[in-house]
Structure formats: structure tokens, C-alpha cells
């Protein structure tokens, strides 16, 4: 409260609107009567707005045998509704000087438009329309199915690294839907039909399963008024199912795989461990894992880079990655690209030796301090990028987190200690929780 008062005084004195000092100060949230959550992120530097609707429905919510239907439906939502022709929504956005698109992940599907802020009402009107009123033809199904198959060709079939990554994921998850690719397995995509798409649509596309995220040159009051008018009148789906997914059993055995493809010129070793994700009110373990990934593989001064690229010269590249935002168990991933003359076996052994050494010697306190400084600064840089802030909220709220969790997160990251990081490494980097993959060049078969 006090901080807000000081800021507004400063604004009066300088004759300008005082900038928000933390991005949290620019965020307002509320819920419509039908259960639709709303997040508003103000940035009045330019008269532009981004309007996003996120559904708590992604590929991990699909029925068995219909992999890819969440993403297929995302494509089909650009077709006709009761009041718009196929393609009319995008054409109308373009006619208003805006851009639009959509994306699908394991835990969410999101639709967005970027446009001048005085066109927000029209965007909401059209987005609300396609939440309930899409009208598909058999021709839409046939043509758009070809498009998603070409999309899979482009992203996956033509890219052996993506094929390898699919095999890694499918091996890591013993029982959870995250083992199935978001875009779908090809043989199941080929069978997706009208009823698959509409059944997913009817089940999950409802205001009580959606989050509206508006960022840019808007006020919360204006967003509330428009949202009530366009989205507030849509009835909630009383039959919305809870998001119960099959869960992972304990992982008891290290798994290994080898993938060979003639298109691979640079072999490498990939390692994934099953890992806990951020949970509402319980983000400490995940915060330690974020720091662990930074300490191990977050740049030139990270532990693996120094050890394996500079000192031992076993690798041309090493990296550590952790996706903290996820509804269910996520993964902690490592990669090592061997230096010339170093075999994959030798690279893997060096990686394991480095990890053991890290757990033994612990975290360099100066390195941790530098990472904290960078994380703190990233909060300043973030204020220049409300689009990223909007996506943060959309991802978090579709992955079981609350606004309070999002806002507590930066402080939580600052509070992680050296001991927390080593403890996280001990808990997660266990062979029986892992999959190790070799990506290799296969001899081309001539016919």
C-alpha cells in the first residue's frame, strides 16, 4: 500500500504517470461469474494490446488413440462459426492491422491477437464466438488434416533430432501422457475425424476452463466491462471433467536407447531425468532445480561448460535444461556434444564423472551470486517485454499454479541456497530416474 502511495505522489510531482517498479504492480486479476479467470497486465508505453485466451486443455488431456487432436482442433478453430466464414477471423484481424495465431502444448491451447488497443472489443467478440460456435465441414477435416501432417513432416519427420527427442520422451514417461508427442503420432493423426475434434471441443472449450490474459495499453476496468459482455454471457460447462491423468509410478530402472539416422552429422548424448514441477504453494524444489540447471549448464561459466569444454575438452557443447512449469512431473535434461575424436561412451562417462564431482564439491558461491544478480536483472528486462509476462501467466495458470505463485517466484529463486541446489541434484540426478540416449549417424542404405 505504502509503495503505491509513494509512486502516485511521484507521478503527480513530475507530471507524468509513474512507471510500475515491479512487473507485479502492473498485474490485476479477477474471475467472471461463469468461472473464467482474467489477468490484465498494463503497459501504456504504446497503444497496442495483446489479447489471449488460454484453455486448460492440451495434448495430455486427449483421449487414448487420438493423439494430436488438441492441436488439430486448434487449427480447425480458424474455420467457420455460426456468424463467421472460414478464415474470416484472421482476415478481420489483418484488416484491423493486427496479427493472430495460436499454439498448443501438453497442458494448454492458446489463441491470441496483437492489435491496436482500440480494437480489443472486436477481438473479444470474435474469440468469444469461436469458444462455442465453430461449424466444421468434412472438407475442413480432410484438408486441415493434410496440413497438420505436413506440419509434422516439417517439424519432426524431416528432423532426426526431433525424432530422437520423441523417442526419449516416450521412454522417460512410463505411464503419463507426456510420453506422447503434442503434434501426435503419425498413424493416429491420419485417423483424426470430425467427431474426435468436436468431442474435445465440447468437453474443454468453455469459460470455466479458460483464462483471458490481456496485456498492453488497457485498464482492468475496461477489460472487465468488455469481458463480461462477450465472455460473461457464455454459460459454464457443468460437466467439465477434472484433469485426472494417469500418473507416473516410481521409476526403478535406468533406461537407454540408441537412435541412428543417416541424416545425423553430429552425434550426441542426451540424458533426461524425471523431475518434480512447480506446484501451487509448493515451488521450493522446482526453484532449486532451476538454479541447478543454471549452475550446471547455464552458460560459459557453468560447471559442465568449464569442466567438459574448457578443462577436459571432451565436448564442443554441453547444456542443462529444466522446464519448471508443468501440470504433472516434468524432466531435467542434459546434453553433451562430444569433441572430435571423443566417443559417445567417453562423453557419457565424462558427463557422469562431472556430475559426481559437482555433487561432491558443491556450488561455487561466487557463481551462485552471479546467477542471483542476473535473475534479479531479468525482472528489470522483463518489464520491457509484456508479451513474455502474459505468456508466463497463461502457462502458469493452465499448469495448476496461481497468481500468488507467479508473483512469489522471483523472490523464491533468490532464496535458494548452495545446500538446496546440491540436495536437488542428489534427489533428481539418479540413474534409476533416467533415460540416456545416443543419437548417431547411420550408414545410408543404397538401393
Amino acid at each position, binding site marked *: 500500500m505504502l509503495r503505491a502511495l509513494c509512486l502516485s505522489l511521484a507521478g503527480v510531482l513530475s507530471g507524468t504517470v509513474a512507471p510500475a517498479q515491479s512487473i507485479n504492480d502492473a498485474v490485476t486479476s479477477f474471475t467472471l461469474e461463469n468461472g473464467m479467470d482474467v489477468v490484465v497486465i498494463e503497459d501504456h508505453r504504446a497503444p497496442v494490446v495483446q489479447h489471449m485466451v488460454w484453455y486448460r486443455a492440451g495434448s495430455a488431456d486427449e483421449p487414448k488413440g487420438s493423439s494430436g487432436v488438441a492441436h488439430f482442433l486448434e487449427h480447425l478453430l480458424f474455420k467457420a462459426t455460426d456468424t463467421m466464414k472460414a478464415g474470416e477471423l484472421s482476415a478481420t484481424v*489483418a484488416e484491423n492491422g493486427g496479427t493472430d495465431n495460436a499454439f498448443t502444448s501438453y497442458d494448454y491451447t492458446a489463441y491470441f491477437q496483437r492489435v491496436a488497443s482500440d480494437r480489443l472489443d472486436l477481438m473479444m467478440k470474435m474469440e468469444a464466438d469461436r469458444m462455442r460456435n465453430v461449424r466444421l465441414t468434412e472438407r475442413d477435416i480432410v484438408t486441415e488434416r493434410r496440413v*497438420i501432417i*505436413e506440419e509434422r513432416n516439417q517439424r519432426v*519427420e524431416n528432423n532426426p533430432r526431433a525424432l530422437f527427442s520423441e523417442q526419449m520422451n516416450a521412454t522417460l514417461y512410463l505411464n503419463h501422457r507426456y510420453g506422447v508427442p503434442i503434434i501426435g503420432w503419425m498413424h493416429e493423426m491420419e485417423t483424426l475425424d470430425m467427431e474426435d475434434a468436436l468431442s474435445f471441443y465440447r468437453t474443454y472449450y468453455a469459460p470455466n476452463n479458460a483464462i483471458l490474459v490481456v496485456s498492453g495499453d488497457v485498464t482492468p476496468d475496461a477489460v472487465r466491462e468488455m469481458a463480461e459482455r462477450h465472455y460473461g454471457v457464455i454459460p459454464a460447462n457443468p460437466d467439465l471433467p477434472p484433469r485426472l491423468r494417469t500418473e507416473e509410478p516410481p521409476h526403478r530402472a535406468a533406461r537407454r536407447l540408441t537412435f541412428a539416422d543417416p541424416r545425423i552429422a553430429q552425434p550426441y548424448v542426451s540424458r533426461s531425468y524425471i523431475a518434480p514441477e512447480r506446484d501451487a504453494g509448493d515451488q521450493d524444489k522446482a526453484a532449486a532445480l532451476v538454479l541447478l540447471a543454471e549452475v550446471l549448464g547455464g552458460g560459459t561459466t557453468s560447471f559442465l561448460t568449464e569442466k567438459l569444454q*574448457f578443462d577436459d575438452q571432451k565436448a564442443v557443447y554441453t547444456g542443462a535444461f529444466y522446464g519448471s512449469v508443468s501440470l504433472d512431473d516434468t524432466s531435467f535434461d542434459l546434453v553433451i556434444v562430444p569433441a572430435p575424436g571423443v566417443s559417445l561412451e567417453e562423453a557419457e562417462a565424462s558427463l557422469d564423472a562431472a556430475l559426481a564431482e559437482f555433487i561432491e564439491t558443491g556450488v561455487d558461491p561466487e557463481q551462485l551470486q552471479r546467477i542471483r544478480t542476473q535473475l534479479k536483472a531479468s525482472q528489470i528486462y522483463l518489464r520491457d517485454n509484456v508479451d513474455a509476462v502474459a505468456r508466463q501467466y497463461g502457462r502458469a495458470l493452465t499448469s495448476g499454479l496461481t497468481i500468488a505463485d507467479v508473483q512469489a517466484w522471483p523472490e523464491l529463486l533468490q532464496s535458494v541456497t548452495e545446500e538446496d541446489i546440491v540436495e536437488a541434484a542428489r534427489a533428481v540426478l539418479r540413474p534409476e530416474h533416467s533415460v540416456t540416449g545416443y543419437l548417431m549417424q547411420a550408414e545410408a542404405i543404397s538401393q
Partner: protein
Amino acid sequence: MKPFFAAVIAWMIAWPALAAVDIQKVETNSGLTAWLVEDHSIPFTALSLRFRGGTSLDADGKRGAIHLMTGLLEEGAGELDARAFAREAEELAARYGFSASDDQVTVTAQFLTENRDAAVALLKSAISEPRFDPDAIERVRQQVLSGLRSDAQDPNDIAGKTFRALAYGDHPYATDGKGTIDSVTALSRDDLADAHSRAMARDLVYVAAVGDITPQDLSVLLDDLLADLPQTGAPMPGEVAVDLEGGVTVVDFDTPQSVALFGHAGMNRDHPDFFAAYVMNHILGGGGFESRLMTEVRENRGLTYGIYSYLMPKDHAAVYLGSVASANGSIAEAVSVIREEWAKLARDGVSAEELEAAQKYLTGAYPLRFDGNARIADIMVSMQMDGLPIDYINTRNAKVEAVTLDDIRRVADTLMQPERLHFVVVGKPTGLDG
């Protein structure tokens, strides 16, 4: 603060959706020019530097030297070796970027106001005193070679290299600026030092800054930052006429989806009809779901996930390019539809409705680009390299709106050359003769 508001109000009247982009020209004591947008709402500055020439300034027989040199700028400078440099950058929480492409070496930096002097001093050491330590050279060289080996197995890279070789004769554009396995392997420390003085000189540089900095502070900062660079860099290569024959070049590569690049000669940025060509291309394949190519190849036939065409006016050549990917069994149909659309546009031009929709989109979407300090700095440095006036942002939409059906008719007649459209197809396409 007064002039800031005055500018905002003036532009709001002319253009409801324009971001508050008030560009000041800063002339420094040592004779440098920079464009600045002051915005003190967030305590950091985004700086963008570009050096004209890029990898096209590689010395004879030293292909890849400028690319490798650029990769080594943050791998040790002044008193600091690679690791010490990285630690210093992390302590300052400054973000630096160094890259090289056909026509430019790009240096970007974002730094906090609280430690601006130290962040700029570190950047100065990177661009004027890179160490090129032998161990750093070997380490980065191996990374580049690893990338080159992967590129050789990537259908998109194969298509790009093949198209370059066909389009640009004996110009540097005809080969990949990253070099070849052989040329990169042979580069010496002296070659890299030479590449540095060829590509990063004061007479090649363009500067823009956005954020929490005054014109006075920027002026002092730049005079210091660029003080130790040589006055003049290597001479620019000559112009090259793009002289493609129509037809198809198939590169046999075992992969399920064929990747195609297609194109012919294009139009220079300073051509009086450039805006007409730009609007026309938007209608043909300029992105978004509404273009003719997207409608015919994706929406109506489901032959691809995405298809685009783009005017590419480079510094020494102009091409008109497009790209598409489709399964080996359907790429021939995609090629045939593209040819028809190319011919149809050359023959019939566009409709009044298409022109109006394109103009509405292009004028409305333009302000949306100015959405962040680094983005605005990037746009301003591009404007300077293209020789555009400082008030260009105010006049650009009027130029788009002034394009008439006759203008497009005229451009379509000359620019669109269906008989010269050349396709490079990488994959195992069926029904295409290369």
C-alpha cells in the same frame, strides 16, 4: 519532458495506433551519428551497432573468417580470457550479442543504468581488443565445424546453399559466409585479426539506442566505445546481377518431405516502385493466412504447413524468393500451383479488394513492431543502413497507402517473371524433373 509529449500528441493525431517513437539524432564530438529514443521508464538501455559489409568482406581464400572472428569477440578481450570475460558479463547482468551475416556484423547490448559504465567498458574491450587466444580459437572453430557438418545434412541449408550458388555467380553471396570445412580448418590467428580490421571499422558502423540514457550520455559513451576501431574497413564487393534460368534443380536427399526454395531477380530497396512491389508481395505470399499462396497451397489443398514469398533487397543484389515444404509425393503439385499463381499475378495483377485489405493490414500492423527497446533499436539501425530519413516512420504508411492498382500492374509486368522462376528442391520428390 515537454518535447516528448509534443511529439506524442502530434503523432497521435496523424496515426492513432503509433507507439511513442520520438527519434533524436545524436552527433558525437568524434563525428559519429546515432539515432536515439529516450525512454526513462525502465532503468536499462538497448544499444544496437551494425557494421556494413559482414561476411561479404572476407579476404580471398579466407571464407568464414569474419563469421569465426565474430564468434570469438566474447571469448576473451583485453585483460580477460574467455572465462573471466563471461564472469564479468554475468556480474554486470549485461546481455551482449555478436553475429555476422551476408551484409553486416551485428553487435547488440542491453545494460542496466546502475552499472552502465562498466558494461560499456566490457563491450569496448570485446569489439576493439579481442584476444583471439589459441585455445579459444580452437574451441570455437570446433563449434563452427560441428555446425557446418550438421548444415550439410539439413535440407533447408542444402536448399539455401544450392540457391546461392545458382543465383550469385562469383560474388561472395554465392557461398555460405560460415565458410567450408576446409576453409575454416585452415584459418589462422592472423586471418582472424585481419578479418576484424576488415569488418569492424568506424566508416562501416551504424548506431541506435533506446532506453534510459540522455543524448549527452550516449554521445560520450559512443566516442569512448568506438574510439579504438580503425577508421576504414575493407572495400565493399561489387554488384551482382541475379541471372537465373527458369526450371527446377533437384538435390537428391533421403528425407520424407521435400524442401523448396524458389525465386528470380528482385527489386532494390531504393527503386521508386519498391512500395508497390512490397504491397504486391504481401498479397502474393507475404505472411499471414490470407495471402494467395497460403490460400491456394495450404488452405484449399492442404499441401503444406506454410508457404511464403519475400523481396530480399541485399546490399549488392536483389532477389525475389519464396519457400515451401511438402511431402515427396505432393511437392510437384505445390510447385505447379506456385507457377500458376506467379503467372496469374503477372497476367492479371491484383483486385481492388486485395489491394485495400493489404493496405489496411500493412498500415495497421506497422506500429505494432515498435514493441520494446531492443526491437526499436534494431529497427532504427536498419533504417539507417537502408538510407532512410529520420522521419521515415511518419511517412511510411502514406507511401503504402499511395500504391494504386496501376502501380501494381506495372510492377507485376516487370518484376514477376514466371518463365524465369527457378525452384531448388531438396528431397526425393516424385514427378519433378531436375
